[in-house]
């Protein structure tokens, strides 16, 4: 079942439509810059870029309030930005600087943004499924009306924990939305080699309604996410959102030669479904924006990212004695 309900589309106000584009564009610029920082050896370690999947983080997070919780993954920059994080503080974290969201202690794979209730990226595949479900439990117990969203890649469907907590969420009607980003690959292995049966039925097996959506179309994602979030807020329990998508770049910044696991043709085909290009097209076609407006958004995003990354480069590392702090609260 697909979710392109025209309803949802027509409901998308011009403001929101432009915001979709702006947020996606910000993520795209951020990730392109992160890739550069790696190539320039200004960023240590390996980072996982979200390029190509922007519509999911943005479509989902635009259906959330600031108080709502998200948990993220090793490929988490997009989720973090979409949930409202500041570009400069994120770059500071990627570079291990004191001013980073985690004082440089977390890095790319552990960015958390407590101000926007982003409970953190996670370097354990599926590792945040319990946290998201627990945040939903907490929201229900406190009667706060908050919703929790758990982002994960289709590879996380290999982790038993995901099924254990879906069972709990269903039993206890918890306000959580499981968002599966199926970008077709677990690292260098196609998901069809790691995932038996029909993914969509997995949540259903725990009594959780499941919806499949085109992850390249931000409107479709937003419409489906909005339904799931409203359902959760109403107290009707968890939902599962399966988003079809593709990562345009390597598994991580070091994964440059990919021909042994996927073809250039496949990559080209998906490039045709660039969420930014698609958005640009309908924004123009539906007369919600003109070229100039969109170019201006692009420019602002690039500017923001350039300034933020430069500020991060110039900002100081934590002092060595920070190493012993925050082991215990």
């Amino acid at each position: 079942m697909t979710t392109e309900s025209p309803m949802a589309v027509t409901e998308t106000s011009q403001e929101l439509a432009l915001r979709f584009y702006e947020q996606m564009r910000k993520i795209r610029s951020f990730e392109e810059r992160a890739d550069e920082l790696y190539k320039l050896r200004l960023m240590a370690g390996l980072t996982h870029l979200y390029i190509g999947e922007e519509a999911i983080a943005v479509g989902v997070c635009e259906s959330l309030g600031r108080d709502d919780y998200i948990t993220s993954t090793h490929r988490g920059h997009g989720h973090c930005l979409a949930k409202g994080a500041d570009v400069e503080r994120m770059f500071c974290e990627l570079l291990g600087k004191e001013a980073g969201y985690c004082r440089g202690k977390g890095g790319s794979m552990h960015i958390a943004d407590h101000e926007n209730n982003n409970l953190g990226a996670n370097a354990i595949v599926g590792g945040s499924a319990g946290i998201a479900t627990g945040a939903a439990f907490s929201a229900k117990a406190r009667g706060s009306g908050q919703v929790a969203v758990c982002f994960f890649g289709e590879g996380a469907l290999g982790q038993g924990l995901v099924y254990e907590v879906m069972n709990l969420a269903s039993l206890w009607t918890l306000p959580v939305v499981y968002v599966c980003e199926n970008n077709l690959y677990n690292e260098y292995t196609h998901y069809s080699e790691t995932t038996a049966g029909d993914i969509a039925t997995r949540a259903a097996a725990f009594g959780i309604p499941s919806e499949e959506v085109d992850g390249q179309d931000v409107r479709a994602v937003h419409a489906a996410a909005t339904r799931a979030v409203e359902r959760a807020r109403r107290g009707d329990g968890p939902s599962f959102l399966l988003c079809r998508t593709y990562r345009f770049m390597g598994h991580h910044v070091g994964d440059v030669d990919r021909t042994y696991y996927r073809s250039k043709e496949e990559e080209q085909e998906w490039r045709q479904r660039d969420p930014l290009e698609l958005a640009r097209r309908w924004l123009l076609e539906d007369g919600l924006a003109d070229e100039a407006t969109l170019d201006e958004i692009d420019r602002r995003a690039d500017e923001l990212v350039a300034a933020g990354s430069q500020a991060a480069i110039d900002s100081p590392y934590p002092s060595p004695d920070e190493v012993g702090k925050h082991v215990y609260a």
Partner: protein
Amino acid sequence: MSTPSVKEVPTSHEGMREISLAQAVNEALAEELRRDPTVFIVGEDVAEAGTAFKVMTGLVEEFGRERVIDSPISEPGITGLGLGAAMTGMRPVVDIMFGDFLTLVMDQLANQAAKIHYMSGGRLKAPLTLRTTLGATRRSAAQHSQSLHVWPAHIPGLKVVLPSTPADAKGLLKTAIRDDNPVVFFEDKMMFATKGLVPDGEYTIPFGVADVKREGEDLTLIATSSMVYVALEAAELLAGEGISAEVVDPRTLVPLDRATLAASARKTGRVIVLDEGHQSYGASAEIAAVVAEDAFFHLDAPVRRMGAMDVPIPFSPVLEDETVPTPDRVLAAALELLGKR
């Protein structure tokens, strides 16, 4: 260990009540559930059943099924759920029936709960209490008799508590629930019926403060959890031989009260460490190393470790009884250490 004979239990006096360790734990939970609405319990058969060990009898009746929650048999799931709740304003007590099942929750505990405060640069915290058991001789065989407390003790970010008496159990559990960090709380399943004096009214016991359970001059027995009773019985036997043994209970492995352990070691010059974890690569190794580091020049003999035998715990009673330290074995080791044998 086998439940200690009642003789060790001092008789009741002013402002104290004699209750079992199970009752002490029950009181601690009830008091914290009463004072803090964010506290809840989740685990298998914790509600009407009151746990497999009947430790929580009466709690669901008072606090309801929203706060004393029966879960599926999903240790990783409930630990992860507890962590998420802890990170968002609650103070969960996750009940893991047997310590042997820590094997299932180490990712949520060690990779997630232990690290979130540090990884977030101090901005997130996880006030999670995980209650579980340890100890053999219940004839429960290899998968229900382990004492795995050294695993979490090795992970920075976790605190590890091993109470021995009802009074300690109550005061330390209340501290655990109020602590802003993930705490793993171990109770020896053979001690639930063990009785002891517990102060009336509200009290807590700080972490990182060892307790001298018996004073002595000739030898120090550092003992954890139920091994404290083995040490106390051994001390009695040693007294019969004219040897004065001091019994020190660290009470918490993390934080560890090095000072008190070292002070006793410096005083007596001879130390035996008793811990029911397997002896190799166990908690007794850290304690022995710490004592050697802090009291080396006062030691008259190498620190002696006595842990569970390095074998899976066998079912057959005649075999299982061979695997754990006993008062007689401690006596023999002590006499050897003192050059009396």
